[in-house]
């Protein structure tokens, strides 16, 4: 079943068109990878899906449907709560781990200390930080390693119970081990969440995603099951891109 659908979606910043007539369905509880060369509009697609595009001075035409309802018929804040996002660079708040994870729940009215504690613990377990930080939830989040920071940020996005998680090259600044950590975690999370991940790393897309979309110069060239895209691309440009990186 599809949870997010775009219909002839075009996005532009001023006069510059970044995405052209993009139509795709994103499947529920699956990992969808978006690949393509730098500047092709991958990140723009993500920021459009949670309406952050308007904050950055862009605008879109065409339709986006979230759970079969026009995305614009929801409140902007509600969309952003239900469609979470994690950036390329880890962005922990310069507070304690505990405060990072209770920041959003407190906003949504959870005041009970026990409830907050259990949110923190659950989240830390989900992102595999619970044992690593040795229960020391008062450590400053900026003191964690890059990989831990990124997992904390994913955790923070989970504290508001989203349905979709948008990840913008979450591993591009991390080493191999941390990347593997995050990939494992995403595979586990995909049972409960729909994940859309933008990545430069083709082997990453191949390893973890169920579906892959290839974007080139703002156009969706090919979209389908990951296996199909990587073994039997229909479009020549997809083939060249995939082979170009490998060869």
């Amino acid at each position: 079943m599809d949870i997010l659908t775009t219909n002839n979606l075009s996005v532009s910043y001023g006069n510059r068109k970044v995405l052209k007539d993009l139509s795709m369905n994103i499947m529920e509880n699956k990992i969808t990878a978006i690949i393509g060369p730098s500047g092709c509009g991958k990140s723009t697609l993500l920021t459009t899906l949670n309406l952050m595009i308007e904050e950055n001075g862009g605008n879109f035409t065409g339709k986006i449907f979230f759970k079969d309802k026009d995305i614009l018929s929801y409140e902007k804040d509600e969309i952003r709560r239900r469609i979470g996002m994690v950036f390329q660079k880890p962005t922990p708040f310069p507070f304690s781990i505990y405060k990072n994870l209770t920041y959003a729940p407190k906003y949504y009215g959870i005041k009970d200390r026990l409830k907050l504690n259990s949110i923190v613990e659950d989240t830390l377990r989900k992102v595999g930080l619970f044992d690593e930080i040795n229960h020391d939830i008062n450590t400053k989040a900026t003191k964690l390693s890059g990989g831990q920071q990124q997992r904390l940020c994913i955790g923070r996005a989970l504290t508001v119970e989203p349905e979709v998680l948008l990840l913008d090259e979450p591993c591009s600044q991390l080493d191999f081990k941390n990347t593997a950590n995050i990939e494992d975690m995403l595979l586990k999370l995909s049972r409960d969440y729909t994940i859309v991940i933008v990545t430069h790393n083709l082997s990453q897309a191949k390893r973890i995603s169920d579906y892959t979309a290839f974007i080139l110069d703002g156009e969706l060239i090919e979209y389908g099951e990951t296996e199909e895209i990587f073994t039997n691309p229909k479009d020549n440009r997809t083939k060249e891109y995939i082979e170009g990186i490998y060869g």
Partner: protein
Amino acid sequence: MSEKIKDSLFKIWIILSTLLMFTVVIYIFGYIFKNGIASINMEFIFGDPKGIPIGSEGGIFPAIIGSLFLMIIACIFASILAISTAVYTVFYCRFKKIESIIHLIVQCMAGTPSIILGLFGYTLLVLYLGLGRSLLSAGLTLGIMIFPYIEVRVEKTLREIDKSIVESSYVLGISKAYTIFKLILPICKKDIISAITLAGGFAMGAAAPIILTGAVIFAPIPKSLSSPVMALPFHLYILTGEGISLEKAYGTALVLIMILLIINIISVVLNMRGREHS
């Protein structure tokens, strides 16, 4: 002339300028210390001014407390307005034009001579609004004077925050107001407090804005916001201007300069600790 000679001449010039400024500052401190230390004792710091003409004997306690009160009122008034203005320009203002108009106004305010601000305060607060010559009128006038200094520094701090941190709050579906109160201002807390203390020191040392709006030659420690008030810079001005007691004037100057020094040190320390964390 070869580049090498030019280079060393330039170096000498820079070192000499620095030395000259250091000497001037140390000379001022030393001179005031040398002349003022004789009058400093418990009675001077904790006593009321006495003698005829008043101030020729006794102490300056009401002036110390008055100055501190003035500083607090000015800081509260100015920082509320300054932080709000800075938050508006950085996070809410969508038009470049309005932003530059705000900047222009703030710069003009910073450039306004303080005696003019004093006259303005006298006309608006003392006469028109009927607040009288009081702690409140003088404090508010000082607040107007330090507003631009706080605004500029707070705005700079707010602009320096990593934009992606602010965005990570928005992508949680969290409102701008909550983001500002619970994330942005706490992150900038130390820088903001440091800006306020520095501006507070500036307010404390100013005589011109309070001459017409509330400072008097003698008053007890103010009991309410509408009482007139003694202040260190004004007391100093009267002691020397009227030729009452040069010795007491140096003592007053020493006390004032020591308080300002302490305030500045606090501000620097806060600022340094703020840097460490970011």
